[in-house]
C-alpha cells in the first residue's frame, strides 16, 4: 500500500529493515535528534527537512546577536554528518498518514518509516490593530525575536519591546548594552510575573531602570501605526522598531491537520509517541504531561527518542520545570513553574531571604526539606545549587541561610560568648552565670541571689538552664579524664 500509486519524485523507499526516519524541523531539537541517531549508529537512512533557509542554530542565544556580543555564525550548531541528507527551505505542508508520506512546499514527497515532528513554536502575535499589514504580514518596523533573520541589525532610533517576560527582559538589557534607547511595555504590574514573585519582580524592575530601560507597567497596547505604539489610557510610545516578545505557541498546524491528538502542543507519551505510534514529536511543539517544555527539555527529548529509535528502552520523564534568566549581570530563576505558593498547606515549609539593599531575594517552598517551588534572584550560587537539588529531588542542607548566601555552612553548635548578656533585665552575662555555677549556684533562687539573673521578666530562665545543662554535661567528662 505504500505510496498508494502516487509519484514519489525524490524520496527513497526504505530498503533497510530499520526504515527511513524523516525529521520535520531543523531547529535545535531536530538537529540534536539526527546527530544522536548518527552517533548511536542508527542503521537506516534518515532525512532532515528544515523550513528555514539557514542551517540550525542555538535559538537561546538570539539576544546576544541582537546585542552584537555574538556574530550570527557563532550560533551555528555543529555540522551534521555528511551522510545525512538535509533539505533547507523545505516546508512540510501535509502528512499522509495512511500512505506514510510527507509532502513539502517545493513539491516533493518523502515516505517515512518513522516520522518525527520537531516543528518548534511560533511567536504569539497579539491581536493589536495595525500590527499586521493588509497582506497579514507584520507591519513595517514590527519584528519578533524568534529567528536569526529577525535579529538582523535594527534600524536606528528608539526600540520598543512589547512584553516583559523572560525574552523581553533579556532583549531589552541586551539592546541597552549596545547603547540603544529601549522602552518596555508590559501588561502586568511587574516584569516576569509568570516566573517571579512581587519582591523579585521589584528588584528586576529596579535593575532594568538602573540600566536605563524605560519600563511602562500595567499598560496594554491598543494599536500600532506611524511608528507609535498606542497604550490604553491614551498615551503612546515611539516605536519605529517594535519587538514582539509576547510569548510563543507550539506549532501544531501540521499535526492538527493530520488528525493527531493536540493539546497546547502535540501530545506525546513517555516514549515521545503521538497518537499515531509511527509519528513522534520532540522539542517546543511537543506536550509531555501538563506542560510544554522549554529549552533544555528539547535536548533531553531528542536524546531519549534517539535511543528509542535505535532499539533502546528509554523513557522520557518530564523534567521539573526550571526557568533561568540569561544575562551576564543578573541571575534569576524560577523552579517549579511559578512563584512559590504562599497559601499555607500542610507539610509545606517556607524559607525566604529578603535583601533589597543588595538586590537579593529567595522564596522557597519545601516539603520534607525538598524544594517544591522557588523564586531566586541575585543569588547565582544558590540558583545553581538549588536547581541541582530540585532536579534530583534532594533535600536542602540544614544551614539554609548559608546555602542561600553561598557561604560555607556553620558547623559549631550555638554557644554564647562569655560576654553575651543573658538576663537582659539585670544585665547579667553568660560569664557571670558560669562563674556562679562554678561557685555552686545550681538553682534559680541561688543564681538570683548571686547575680539577680532571672528576677526581671523571667524570659532568660530557659537559656540559663541550657547553659547549666552544657556545664553539667561537660563536668563529668572532665573529671573522668582527670581521675586516673
Amino acid at each position, binding site marked *: 500500500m505504500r505510496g498508494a500509486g502516487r509519484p514519489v519524485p525524490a524520496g527513497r523507499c526504505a530498503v533497510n529493515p530499520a526504515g527511513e526516519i524523516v525529521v520535520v524541523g531543523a531547529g535545535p531539537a531536530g538537529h540534536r535528534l539526527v546527530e544522536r541517531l548518527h552517533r548511536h549508529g542508527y542503521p537506516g537512512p534518515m532525512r532532515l527537512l528544515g523550513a528555514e533557509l539557514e542551517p540550525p542554530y542555538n535559538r537561546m542565544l538570539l539576544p546576544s546577536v541582537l546585542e552584537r556580543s555574538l556574530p550570527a555564525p557563532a550560533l551555528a550548531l555543529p555540522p551534521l554528518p555528511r551522510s545525512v541528507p538535509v533539505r533547507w527551505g523545505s516546508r512540510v505542508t501535509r502528512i499522509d498518514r495512511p500512505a506514510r508520506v510527507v509532502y513539502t512546499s517545493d513539491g516533493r514527497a518523502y515516505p517515512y518509516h518513522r516520522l518525527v515532528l520537531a516543528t518548534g513554536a511560533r511567536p504569539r502575535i497579539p491581536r493589536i490593530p495595525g500590527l499586521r499589514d493588509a497582506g497579514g504580514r507584520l507591519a513595517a518596523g514590527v519584528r519578533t525575536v524568534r529567528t536569526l533573520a529577525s535579529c538582523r541589525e535594527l534600524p536606528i532610533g528608539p526600540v520598543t519591546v512589547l512584553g516583559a517576560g523572560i525574552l523581553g527582559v533579556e532583549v531589552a538589557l541586551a539592546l541597552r548594552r549596545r547603547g540603544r534607547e529601549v522602552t518596555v511595555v508590559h501588561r502586568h504590574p511587574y516584569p516576569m510575573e509568570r516566573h517571579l514573585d512581587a519582591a523579585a519582580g521589584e528588584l528586576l524592575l529596579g535593575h532594568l531602570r538602573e540600566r536605563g530601560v524605560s519600563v511602562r507597567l500595567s499598560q496594554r497596547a491598543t494599536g500600532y501605526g506611524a511608528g507609535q505604539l498606542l497604550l490604553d489610557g491614551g498615551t503612546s510610545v515611539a516605536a519605529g522598531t517594535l519587538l514582539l516578545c509576547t510569548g510563543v505557541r507550539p506549532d501544531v498546524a501540521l499535526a492538527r491537520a493530520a488528525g493527531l491528538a493536540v493539546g497546547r502542543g502535540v501530545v506525546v507519551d513517555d516514549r515521545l509517541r503521538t497518537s499515531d505510534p509511527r509519528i513522534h514529536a520532540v522539542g517546543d511543539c511537543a506536550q509531555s504531561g501538563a506542560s510544554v517544555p522549554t529549552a533544555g527539555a528539547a535536548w533531553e527529548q531528542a536524546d531519549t527518542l534517539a535511543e528509542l529509535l535505535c532499539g533502546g528502552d528509554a523513557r522520557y520523564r518530564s523534567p521539573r520545570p526550571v526557568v533561568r534568566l540569561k544575562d551576564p549581570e543578573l541571575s534569576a530563576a524560577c523552579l517549579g513553574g511559578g512563584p512559590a505558593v504562599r497559601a499555607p498547606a500542610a507539610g509545606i515549609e517556607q524559607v*525566604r531571604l*529578603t535583601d533589597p539593599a543588595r538586590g537579593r531575594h529567595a522564596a522557597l517552598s519545601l516539603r520534607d526539606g525538598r524544594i517544591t517551588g522557588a523564586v531566586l534572584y541575585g543569588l547565582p550560587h544558590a540558583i545553581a545549587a538549588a536547581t541541582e537539588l530540585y532536579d534530583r529531588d534532594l533535600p536542602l542542607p*540544614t544551614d*539554609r541561610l548559608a546555602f542561600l548566601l553561598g557561604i560555607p555552612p556553620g*558547623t559549631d553548635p550555638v554557644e554564647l560568648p562569655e560576654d553575651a548578656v543573658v538576663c537582659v533585665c539585670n544585665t547579667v552575662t553568660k560569664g557571670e552565670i558560669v562563674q556562679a555555677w562554678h561557685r555552686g549556684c545550681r538553682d534559680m533562687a541561688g543564681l538570683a541571689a548571686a547575680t539577680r539573673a532571672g528576677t526581671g521578666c523571667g*524570659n532568660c530562665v*530557659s537559656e540559663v538552664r541550657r547553659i547549666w545543662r552544657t556545664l553539667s554535661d561537660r563536668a563529668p567528662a572532665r573529671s573522668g579524664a582527670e581521675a586516673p
Partner: protein
Amino acid sequence: MTDTLVIIGFGMVGHRLVEAVRAGDRPGRWRIVVLGEEPHPAYDRTALSAYLLGRSGSELSLVSDALWHDPLVQLRPGTSAVTVDRVRRVVVTGDGAEIGYDALVLATGARPFVPLVPGHDRPGCLVYRTIEDMDALRAEARSGHPAVVVGGGLLGLEAAGALRELGLRPHVVEAAPQLMPAQLDPGGARVLARRVTASGLRLHCGTGLHTVNEGVRGRVGGVTLAGGARLPAGIVVFAAGVRPRDDLAAGAELPVAPRGGFLVDARCRTRDPRIWAVGDCAAVEGRCYGLVNPGYRMADVVADQLLGAGRRTFTGTDMSTKLKLAGVEVASFGDAHAVTAGSYEFVQADPAAGTYAKLVLSGEGRVLLGGVLAGDTSGYATLRALIGRPLPALPEALLGRRPGLNHAR
C-alpha cells in the same frame, strides 16, 4: 544627714526604684517616701490577666515584708499627689498634706487611651490597667456573650485571651492592617492571626471603631466599625495603648514632650536638677516606651545618680519582648523590623503548623540584629543574647523548626 527622696507613683517602676536605692544605699543617706494613687502597693501589672482569672491580689504584690518594715522607707498607697511646688520643694497630696523633698522622682505611669468615639463612656465600656479595672470587668462579664476589645496589640490580645478564658466570645478590633504592629512583622502577625482565630477570637484588622452603640438601659449594646459592620457586644474593653500621665507638669512648670510625657534627658533628668521622671510617664529624649523593661532601666539610671556615681545613661531602646498571647507564643527582639541600613531578612516558616521565625542580619556575613518568632519562641533567650554577633551556624533548633517532625513520614 538624711535627705528625703519622694517618689510619686507606686507602680512597678516606682517600686523598682525604691528597691534599687535601698540596695545600694549602705550609709543610709536617703529617707524615701513613696506615694501611690492606687489603694494597693506595687503589683505585677503584667499578671493582671492571671488576677482576672482567679489569682489573688496578694500573689501579684511585688512588695516584700522587709520593705514594709524598712525604717528608711515610708510606703503610702492610696495617696495621690496633687501639685509639685518646685520653689518650696514640696509635694502636695490629695489630703492636703505637704511633703518636702530633696530629690523627686515622677513615676506616675500611664492611663489607658480611650478614643473619643460616640458612646465611649457608656456603662459597659471598660479599660485594662489596674486591679480595680479587673474587678469591674469581672462584674460586667457575662459568659457566653460577645465582647469587643479595641486594640490588637500586646494588651488587647492579652485582654481578649482572658475574656475568652472567662467564657466570653471576644471580637478584636485593630486599626492597623495586622496584629501587634509595634512588635511583629506581617509574616509573624499572619501566623499569630491564624492561631488566635482558631482559638476562638474574631479579628477585625485594618478598621477603626466608629461608635459604641446603645443597648438596654443605656448600656453598651455593640459597636459599629469604620467600615459600617456592626458587632453585638455586652462590653467594650479599650486596650489600644496608653498615654503618659504628665498632669503634674503644668503646675510645676516642667516641660512635656510634644506627644506627652515628662521630657527628660538620657539620665532621666527634667530641667530641674532635683527632679527625675521614670517609666511610662517619662519621655526620654522625647520618646515614651510604655513597657516595663525600659522603665526598670530608667529606674536603675536614676538610682545610680542618687547614689553618687551617676555615669549611666538610658540607652534602652531594646524593646525585645516574649509573650504568650491568647495561647500563642510570640517574641520580637532587637531590630525586628529590619530598619538598620543594609540589613537583610531570613525567614523560615511552616504556616500550616503555625510557626514563623525571622532573623534580621546585617551586612556581609551574618551578624544577628534581631528577629521575630511566632508559634514557637523556645529560641528567644539564646537568639536575644546573640544580637550583635555573627551566627556561628544557623540555629535551626531555635527557629521553631523540628526536623524530626518534618521527616516523620
